[in-house]
Each structure stands twice: as C-alpha cells, then as structure tokens.
C-alpha cells in the first residue's frame, strides 16, 4: 500500500486516536501502542477476548514486534498486524458487504462486553475484508467497560452503518455514495429527511434514526457529562439487540438493472466464453500476479478464473447489482482471495479526508501486478469518449501486466452504443487500438476469440 506518510513513517489515516497509531518501516506495517493504552491492551490480550475474536475471524491477528517505536517516548508496545491484502472503503462496498460489516461490529461489541470491554469507536473504516470476512483491523478500538457507561460509539454506528443501510434498502441502493462525501457517516438529519415516511413505523428506524436526529438538533451542545453512569448493562444489551435486529431486517435484493443478467444477453457463444476463460486462466497462470484488478468484472466470472493462479483479486464493477451478486457468490463459496468492489472507472474513488490524505484514491492502493479489462474498452472509448492513447496511458499506470479485450466496431454490443450518436471514432479499429497501446505496452499475445470478432491481448507495460 502506498498510504501517504508523515516524516516518522506514521500513516496519515491514523492520527485521531491517542491510544496509538500505524506506521510503516522497511515496508512492514506496525502499530504503536502508547503507554496511555497499556491497561486496555492488557485486558484485551489477557481476558481471552483477543483470542476469541481472532478465532471467529472478527479481529485482525497480530504479533508483538521487537521494534523501537516511531515516537518512542509514548511507546508501550509495537505490534505487527497481519497485512490486509487490499484496503477498501464503505463507499466501495455493496449492500451486503456494508451489512456484514455492521453485524460484525455489533458482534464484536457484544463479545467485548462479556469480557468487560467496549468498542470506543464504530467506524466503518475500521472494518476490512480479510479472507472474505468483515474483520476489525484496529486493535486499539477497545476500552475498559464500566457498568453504567453508555456506548460512546452509538452515534458513529448509526451514521456509518445504520443510516446508509436504511437508505440503500428503503430509498435507493446508490445512496451509499453519500459516504464518499460524508467521511464520518451520513448525517442523521439528512438520512431522516431522505428516508420514506413509512420508516417512522419501524421501531428501530424511528428511534435510532428519526428520533436520534431530532435529539441531536434539540440537545446540540447540552452538557451531559453529569449523566454518565446511568445506563446499566441490561440497557446496553437491549440497545445492541435492537441495533442488530434493525440491521438484520434491512434487505436489498439485486434486481434486473443494467448488467444484472449481462451474461445472458451477451452476443457471444459458449465457445467464445470458454475460450476467453481458458486464455485468462492460462495467462494468469503464466504471470502469477500477486494482486489482480479485474476492472468491469461484472459478477466476477473471470476474476475467479484469474484467482486460480493464487493471487488476490479485486473484482470491481460500476453496477451495485453485479457487485452484490459477486459478493453473495463469494460468501457462499467461501472464496478467500476475492474482493468484489463497487467502482466507477470513469470517476474512480479519489483520495479524501483530512488534507486529502485519510483515504487513498483507488490507484493509490496499487499498482496491481495484473489488470483485466475484458469487454470494457468500448464502454470507455465510445460511451465515455476516452481517446485510446489516454486509455493505454491510464491502464499502464494501474498495472504491470494487462489482459485486455478489443471489441471491434462491427460487434453488435458496440453498434448498440453507437445507435443514437454520431460515430466520431475513426481510429477505433484493431490497428488503431494496437498502435495506441504499443506506446505503453509490449504486446506478448494477441488471440482471436473463437466464434467472435473480438481479440484478447496479453500485454506488459514497458
């Protein structure tokens, strides 16, 4: 990962919590645990909570490292967490991924309470997909629970998880993009305004979103410090159960949107499809990429083929339906080296947050060893008017190896894109494509796909 760093190597996304921070040294990621956090860290490790959470796949495992701290005066311990293969953000997740991240957070909180601890934050950014499961990556998220104390992360949970999930399920699935604008989650007054009024009849949404939003407005700035110590454990259990059941009842089922049934409406035969799979498998097997980005992956058929070579595959698409289907299949098959993600290539995730350094742009989390761009070129070059040399330049920055499919103008899918517009693409030919890409890449293979007019290439950026 190329997350920007400060001078001490401290990662720029890791500055808020006084308990410690992440830093990188010689390419290895460490987390400094500050003296301030000694008691909590001890409780986490000694109470058995750490072991239970790691065993359940809910917390990232770590080892204690014999390293000096990056800011040694404050350092109590240095730990080395297991490396997350690819960092992703909630605005890149499908509905199911965000829901699983929410349920994992609540499950962690319930387990923590049993061990006398409590989550002090409930940020969606603290959850990552590791071996296919939503996993907490911030080992320093726990505090010692004192009976009577409310859940300090309640507001954050509602903003990061409940509000976007409710909006996605009950208003429009695309509203997860609000998370890209509001880095600390969807403001509850906005969620309350956008949700259909019938959601006031749902007890969970009425209380945790609508009344919650009104209370925020009404009691803004009120001094509540004297009220600490008035929420017993039973009340905490009730609150967590209510959040859990409210989240569980929110559902969104992928319907027939743009690409939902893409593979049923494609214009190529089974033989062409099988030939493409065979070529992708063969070339991935030859290159053995550690990290593959499948761009425009649809429901991930070719991502899975590429993944058989053993690397980690980020399988991205612009369509929430395809990403949801991909995620459900991944979960069902317990695939560990695949990460379905929502990504609009015409406007990929930018770097956002404080000083624009907190959350990396998509390309900042690369480059990949291999990029797959199958049945994609025509969408970018024709629908989005990207000139071929610019496309080649873009793809060369994203990965060393490129498996790319050229779909000629005579193809009925391309004809469809041109049906309602002028053909202003005189260079969109096989020759034009090859000459543009040769500026950036060495073409190792160019194979005509059986029973089709398409050509599949294996290229290496030069």
């Amino acid at each position, binding site marked *: 990962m190329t997350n920007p760093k400060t001078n001490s190597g401290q990662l720029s996304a890791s500055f808020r919590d006084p308990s410690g921070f992440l830093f990188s040294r010689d390419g290895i990621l460490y987390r400094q645990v500050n003296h301030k956090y000694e008691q909590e860290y001890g409780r986490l490790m000694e109470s058995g909570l750490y072991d239970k959470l790691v065993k359940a796949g809910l917390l990232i495992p770590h080892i204690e490292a014999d390293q000096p701290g990056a800011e040694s005066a404050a350092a109590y311990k240095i730990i080395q967490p297991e490396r997350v293969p690819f960092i992703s953000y909630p605005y890149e997740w499908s509905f199911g991924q965000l829901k699983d991240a929410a349920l994992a957070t609540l499950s962690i909180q319930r387990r923590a309470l049993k061990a006398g601890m409590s989550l002090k934050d409930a940020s969606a950014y603290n959850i990552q997909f590791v071996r296919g499961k939503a996993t907490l990556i911030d080992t320093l998220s726990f505090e010692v629970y004192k009976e009577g104390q409310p859940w300090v992360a309640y507001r954050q949970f509602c903003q990061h998880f409940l509000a976007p999930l409710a909006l996605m399920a009950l208003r429009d699935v695309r509203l997860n993009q609000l998370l890209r604008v509001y880095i600390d989650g969807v403001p509850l007054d906005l969620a309350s305004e956008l949700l259909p009024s019938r959601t006031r009849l749902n007890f969970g949404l009425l209380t945790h979103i609508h009344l919650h939003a009104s209370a*925020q407005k009404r009691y803004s700035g*009120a001094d*509540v*410090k004297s009220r600490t110590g008035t929420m017993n454990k039973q009340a905490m259990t009730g609150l967590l159960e209510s959040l859990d059941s409210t989240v569980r009842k929110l559902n969104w089922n992928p319907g027939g949107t743009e690409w939902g049934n893409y593979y049923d409406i494609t214009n190529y035969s089974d033989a062409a499809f099988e030939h493409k799979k065979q070529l992708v498998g063969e070339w991935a097997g030859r290159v053995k990429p550690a990290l593959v980005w499948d761009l425009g992956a649809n429901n991930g058929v070719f991502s899975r083929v590429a993944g058989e070579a053993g690397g980690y595959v980020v399988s991205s698409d612009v369509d929430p339906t395809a990403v949801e289907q991909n995620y459900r299949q991944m979960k069902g098959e317990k695939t560990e080296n695949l990460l379905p993600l929502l990504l609009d290539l015409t406007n990929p995730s930018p770097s956002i947050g404080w000083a624009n350094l907190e959350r990396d742009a998509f390309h900042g989390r690369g480059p990949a060893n291999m990029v797959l761009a199958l049945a994609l070129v025509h969408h970018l070059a024709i629908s989005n008017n990207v000139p071929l040399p610019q496309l080649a330049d873009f793809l060369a920055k994203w990965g060393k190896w490129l498996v790319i499919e050229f779909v000629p103008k005579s193809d009925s899918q391309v004809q469809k894109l041109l049906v309602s517009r002028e053909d202003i693409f005189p260079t969109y030919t096989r020759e034009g494509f090859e000459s543009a890409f040769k500026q950036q890449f060495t073409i190792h293979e160019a194979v005509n796909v059986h029973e089709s007019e398409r050509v599949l290439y294996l290229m290496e950026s030069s």
Partner: protein
Amino acid sequence: MHFAPLPYLDPGSGSFLIQLLIAALLGLGVAVRASWSRIKGWFGIKPKAADDEDDEPEDK
C-alpha cells in the same frame, strides 16, 4: 475542552441523551424477557438456544 475521562470521539449530546432513553426502554424488555424465561424455568421449559456469543451462527 475536557479530555480524560471523556471519550476521544465526541458521542454528541443529543445522541447521548436519546441513547439513554432508548436503552432504558429496551433494557426493560431484556429484563422482562429474563424474568419470563425464569418463570418458564420453574415449569421446566428450557430456553431455545444458549445465549452465548461464541456459539453464534455464521451470518448467512
């Protein structure tokens, strides 16, 4: 500004108060359920599943 022993994230005054209210209500429910299962226990009716998070089934 106060820091210790307050949390490093601001829980928000309104969020804090509404949480106390909702949780008090929901806590009552938990208490009623616990008493109810105790009463059922007197008649030999066992609770359906062990309420142990470690046995929590995998999410579907």
